[in-house]
């Protein structure tokens, strides 16, 4: 215990002397050097303390900004979802508008009205033969009514109705082997008969042998066709078949304008109430 008292007295004397020296010599060089040294050693405490305090002070506004950003983010996500819905709706309306514009542009034959229907079903085994549409007798669809499609705002021939049910109808496509329609070539204006091949191509037969044919020609329905109105696009000449010396006509291969895989909506011509009898079809165009 005495030793501790003695040591504490020594420490007291030493520190007392040091403190008094610091107090009495405030401008002396050693004191200033000591003060500078102590300041150098202890200043970081205040410096980093200030920085830390500043960070703590900045935390609430930063947190508030973060929360605000989160709220904005949620709001924007909701708006984005809504925008996606609106875009989809807009696309649907645009398609509908185009279809209606197209329908307005077509003048159906006298006594006929146009009717749009969705493609409901395709038979995988008979892809190029027939499709089922969502309009039937209830909507006024009749047997052998011509069916059209839309390609870049132009009406194209798709086929004709061969079976009518209450709310649906079966359409025989142009590419079916049993389909045929009178048509003409756009360049030479000669007529022939376009027939389905059961595949992705059509064949145009009975073209006069003296006519010069070329690939790329467009083929339209003939005004003489009993099923289709005239001037409806059927397809384009893809290849010219070699001439058969035993035949008096020549034929060409066509790529149909109506792609069976791309059809989603079709237009059907239906007789108006004023029309007394159904369309009479030419023998060559009947199944």
């Amino acid at each position, binding site marked *: 215990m005495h030793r501790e008292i003695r040591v504490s007295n020594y420490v*007291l004397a030493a520190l007392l002397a*040091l403190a008094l020296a*610091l107090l009495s010599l405030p401008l002396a060089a050693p004191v200033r050097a000591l003060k500078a040294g102590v300041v150098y050693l202890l200043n970081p405490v205040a410096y980093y303390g200030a920085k830390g305090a500043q960070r703590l002070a900045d935390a609430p506004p930063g947190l508030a900004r973060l929360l605000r950003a989160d709220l904005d983010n949620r709001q924007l996500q909701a708006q984005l979802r809504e925008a996606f819905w609106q875009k989809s709706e807009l696309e649907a309306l645009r398609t509908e508008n185009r279809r209606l514009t197209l329908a307005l542009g077509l003048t159906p034959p006298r006594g006929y009205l146009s009717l749009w229907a969705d493609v409901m079903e395709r038979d995988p085994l008979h892809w190029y033969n027939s499709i089922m549409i969502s309009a039937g007798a209830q909507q006024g669809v009749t047997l052998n009514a011509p069916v059209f499609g839309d390609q870049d705002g132009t009406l194209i021939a798709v086929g004709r109705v061969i079976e009518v049910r209450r709310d649906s109808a079966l359409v025989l496509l142009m590419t079916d082997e049993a389909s045929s329609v009178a048509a003409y070539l756009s360049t030479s204006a000669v007529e022939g008969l376009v027939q389905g091949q059961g595949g992705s191509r059509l064949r145009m037969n009975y073209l006069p042998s003296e006519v010069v044919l070329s690939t790329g020609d467009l083929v339209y329905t003939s005004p003489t066709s009993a099923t289709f109105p005239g001037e409806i696009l059927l397809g384009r000449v893809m290849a010219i078949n070699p001439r058969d010396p035993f035949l008096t006509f020549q034929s060409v291969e066509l790529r149909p304008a109506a792609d069976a895989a791309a059809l989603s909506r079709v237009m059907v011509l239906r007789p108006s109430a004023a029309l007394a009898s159904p369309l009479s079809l030419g023998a060559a165009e009947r199944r």
Partner: protein
Amino acid sequence: MNHLRGAVLFLAAALLQWWWSTRLSFDGLSPQILLVLTVAMAGRVGPNSGMCYGFLWGLFIDILRPELFGGNALALMLVGYGTGTLRRKIDVIDAVSQCLIVFFMTWGNFLLYGLLGAVFAKNFIWVGWPAFLCDPLYNCLIVPFAGLACAWLRVR
């Protein structure tokens, strides 16, 4: 006593004192954390530690103040010595006695610092009546925390 813990306690206490004085002072009043810690240190560890820590903490306060350089060092060193001396006579670890020591040491510290100002700066440095009356009570509130800090220092 772990020297590393001692250094940590020294720096942490200095930082806390500075932070409280500049950020949390209410109407210019803030607790004298370093004085309370000096009392706790001298009471729990011994007069030598109390004097050394008090002297260094006093120097830290001195460099933050423009007046007497060495005044707070001398005052806090004497607080440590006084508490260490009382330690041989009474139980200074008890919370109540420590609060009493802190209470009166705060007044003693104010008066000693004022006298040192009168002697070395020709001007009695008066802290003002609000600080003179309220600071001792304020300091008593943090006595338990200072005791915990010193207990942490002595854990091996």
